[in-house]
């Protein structure tokens, strides 16, 4: 549903999520260390080859993620033609395109659950400060549940105000809506505590319990 993941069984799909994210981060740093068009262009070709060739992603899946910034890239290119030179403009645009395509490939070939696991793993050093990585997964799950809920409550309040004669969207509806959903969130918190997801630390923290989790 709410994901840009494209199912598949390729080598790229099966590669560990942590490895893919690590390579992407390395690419992000590496591309800014070079000014050579051949290197930057080569990175774009490799990213496209991995996405379209190895991962067998449909062309549309990559294009959809790059499309929103097409105009920006064009503006950037024209700007460089006017202010600097063709070479700098080409490198700047190719660099951003390579990064965008590489990131789109990782997003399209990695399940949300695998990425949540990486986030939990990345957060594990924070245990020292009393953060429990599992609770991060809990917050993410709650957010995904709250999104349709907030949208539905907003629609209901808008209807109620329309029934009383308010014919257009007014910001006054934000206050009752917020109070309503804040109450609901507090209830969810209580329900979680009642089911044993309370604040008691799994093991004794070094200082104060649970600074943030």
């Amino acid at each position, binding site marked *: 549903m709410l994901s840009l993941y494209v199912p598949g069984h390729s080598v790229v799909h099966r590669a560990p999520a942590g490895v893919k994210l690590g390579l*992407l981060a390395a690419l992000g740093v590496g591309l800014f260390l070079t000014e050579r068009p051949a290197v930057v262009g080569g990175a774009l070709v490799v990213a496209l080859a991995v996405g379209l060739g190895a991962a067998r992603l449909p062309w549309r899946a990559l294009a959809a993620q790059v499309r929103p910034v097409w105009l920006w890239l064009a503006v950037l290119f024209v*700007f460089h033609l006017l202010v600097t030179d063709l070479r700098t403009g080409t490198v700047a645009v190719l660099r951003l395109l390579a990064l965008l395509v590489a990131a*789109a490939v990782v*997003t399209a070939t990695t399940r949300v659950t695998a990425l949540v696991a990486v986030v939990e793993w990345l957060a594990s050093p924070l245990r020292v400060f009393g953060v429990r990585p599992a609770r991060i997964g809990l917050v993410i799950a709650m957010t995904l549940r709250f999104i349709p809920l907030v949208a539905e409550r907003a629609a209901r309040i808008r209807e109620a105000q329309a029934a009383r004669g308010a014919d257009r969207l007014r910001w006054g509806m934000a206050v009752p809506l*917020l*109070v309503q959903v*804040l109450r609901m969130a507090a209830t969810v918190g209580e329900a979680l505590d009642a089911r044993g997801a*309370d604040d008691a630390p799994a093991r004794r923290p070094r200082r104060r319990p649970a600074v943030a989790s």
Partner: protein
Amino acid sequence: MKSRDLAYVALFAAIVAVLGLIPPVPVPGLPVPITAQTLGVMLAGSVLGAKRGGLALLVFLALVAMGAPLLSGGRGGLSVFAGPTAGYLYSWPIAAFVIGLLTQLFWRRFNLAWALVANMIGGILVIYAIGIPFTSLFGDVPLWASFTGSLTFIPGDLVKAVVASLVAVAVRRAYPVIELPTRRATAS
């Protein structure tokens, strides 16, 4: 952090996502539309306070990074963090944190004026202070160019700051979420 606080964090991450569903207002000649999502950044800070507000935006960005198309216009995935305007995204948790910090500072005498101060410093100044240099760095564009380019958004941002402040003051009266440390509360 209590379970209730986790639920508040998740709630505001969701609210920022829902605000992304409001159709963005396109600005002629600019590739970036005006969206309602920074309104969510301001609300997160001025309703939840510094820590929970900042965390709410971190959770939101984490979901976007995982491929949920939650940014306005249905964008998402890791690629949005590599784009030239990604600095504005990175600034959101910091902006919410700063707004929350100022709101907590003003909490006792919090009214529309103080709310505006908090929302304009955190929700406009901080966001531009991070977003503008990022654009010039990523796009190899001089600072002045990316600065003048972003001036178009100032009127929209001012409107959002006023709306967020009105809502924050009303929510404080109806359902205050920020609690100051009890030590200082008993002293007053």
